[in-house]
């Protein structure tokens, strides 16, 4: 292939994707990175050593809000300048929408949320969940240009491909943005990024009422972790905010530890915890599917186990 162009609004995702790409440069070709929007020039510095031989920068005011329509146009132009035939994005919420639009712009095939990325016989092969996590579809993009949004945590780079990338000011002809981001405020106190948390306490339908979330929050505090949930608690009951929901239509996580409390273990949820190192399940039903993928299981009432565990952790000064 002729080259890779890596882009994400998340700088750490960019570094991982660039480093992974550099490890596969024999097949994929030279690695370029695009850094767009506010402060792009300064942010570009950190990507010079991530494996990219070229870092394309543009700080045009129209890119400030990173609206997908303008970013898509910018990336299409930079891909051409970089002679990249593979564009790797991070499958954040914006990244997935951007990948779709960019693929249409380039008339290329698109995989919007890859959970596997590999190279076989010189071809890029991707895998992604379909049918609510019940299947994995392994796909090959047939068009000369390819757009893939990679789920965070899917690939790792060795860092050995680091080079002193050249910073290039990209000449772009950008469309007048039709969509404007008129306000952008960090979320209220609940600001959280489940996908990047190391310790999670995930609660499911076993929780009887919203007031009992306090128990779960106390345990999460002992672990210095975050509270997460299954879909019903967020979408149906509205007890927990949507950005804490784990599963096919929510976040995919890669924590060191996840405590699954009162979670039955339906596949639509468990696809989101496949990246966890250690899974602990507490459920009163010994036949709950969650025990099939847990490392440690406790058959019991979460209302008894959770406070006891919080105490035990406190005594050990776990965090």
């Amino acid at each position, binding site marked *: 292939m002729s080259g890779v162009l890596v882009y994400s609004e998340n700088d750490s995702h960019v570094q991982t994707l660039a480093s992974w790409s550099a490890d596969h440069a024999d097949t994929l070709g030279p690695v370029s990175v695009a850094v767009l929007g506010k402060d792009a020039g300064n942010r570009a510095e950190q990507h010079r050593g991530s494996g990219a031989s070229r870092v394309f920068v543009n700080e045009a005011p129209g890119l400030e809000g990173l*609206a*997908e*329509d303008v970013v*898509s146009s910018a990336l299409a132009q930079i891909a051409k300048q970089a002679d990249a035939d593979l564009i790797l994005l991070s499958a*954040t*919420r*914006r990244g997935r*929408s*951007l990948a*779709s*639009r960019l*693929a*249409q712009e380039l*008339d290329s095939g*698109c995989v919007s*949320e890859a959970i596997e990325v590999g190279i076989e016989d010189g071809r890029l092969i991707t895998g*992604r*969940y*379909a*049918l*609510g996590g*019940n*299947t994995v*579809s*392994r*796909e*090959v*993009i*047939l068009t000369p240009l390819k757009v893939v949004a990679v789920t965070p945590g899917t690939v790792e780079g060795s860092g050995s491909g680091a080079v002193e990338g050249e910073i290039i000011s990209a000449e772009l002809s950008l469309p007048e943005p*039709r*969509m404007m*981001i*008129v*306000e952008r*405020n*960090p979320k209220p106190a609940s*600001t959280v*990024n489940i996908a990047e948390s190391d310790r999670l306490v995930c609660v499911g339908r076993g929780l009887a009422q919203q007031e009992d979330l306090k128990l779960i929050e106390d345990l999460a505090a002992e672990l210095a972790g975050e509270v997460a949930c299954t879909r019903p608690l967020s*979408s149906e009951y509205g007890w927990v905010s*949507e950005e804490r929901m784990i599963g096919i*239509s929510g976040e995919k996580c890669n924590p*060191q*530890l996840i405590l699954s409390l009162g979670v039955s273990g339906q596949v639509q949820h468990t*696809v989101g915890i*496949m990246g966890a190192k250690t899974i602990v*399940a507490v459920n009163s039903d010994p036949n709950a599917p969650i*025990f*099939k*993928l*847990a*490392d*440690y*299981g406790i058959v*019991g009432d979460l209302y*008894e*186990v959770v406070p*006891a565990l919080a105490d035990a*952790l406190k005594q*050990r000064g*776990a965090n």
Partner: protein
Amino acid sequence: MNIVVCVKQTVDTAATVTVSDGEISWGDAPLVLNPWDEYAVEQALLSKEAHGGKVTAISLGPEGAKDALKQALAMGCDEAILIKDAAFDDADSLVVSKALAASITKLGEIDLAFFGRQAVDSDTGVTFAQVARRLGWPALSLASKVEELDPGAQTIAVERMLEGSRQRLRSKLPVVVSVVKEINEPRYPSFMGIRKASRAEIPEWSAGDIGLAEVPKAALSWPKVFAPPKIETECEFIEGEAAEEIATKLADRLLEEKVI
């Protein structure tokens, strides 16, 4: 306002899906209107109720997809159109988006096109953005609230949630909007709605009808579909007389593993 809602017929999320030798099966579970699309239909209807106009539901699929369109009609859509052509049999999102965009162009003078966030079968969530690009419209993705819709000024503002932030997006019409569950509570079809829908004749548009003389080939091939790999774990059950004892044992094991 002239509003379009694009819908898909999918397998019910309650169905048991199995994969064997690359063949996917959901037994005799019924096909339904894609659950995420119900929110798109509802938002289209709410927009029409607030500002007047007409809602047209469009789907691409086989004859059976008319059932999904009838569900949309029963909820209150004014018209429905099925895009149906053997040329679309192996269509991927790139092809489907071209067909949907061509249909929207054929309808003409559309202000708003609503989509659900993704279809529960393919789960790609890319079609709305591809249709938007094809039409040269902005796509407001994952909207959880329509804050303003002003047909006079031809503007819309929506809110969406991203990882760690909340955004307010404003755009000129026409625009594509994909919606998440938080945006509304879809209505149940009324008895009258169901009766009306059951009698409705749904027109079919072929590839030629929408001006796609040549249907492009799919940009993706999916050589392999399989059940997700099972994590091979041996669950170590922790037992004891009382919750305290169990909790202590677990805490010790987690410390040994250095995950806390």
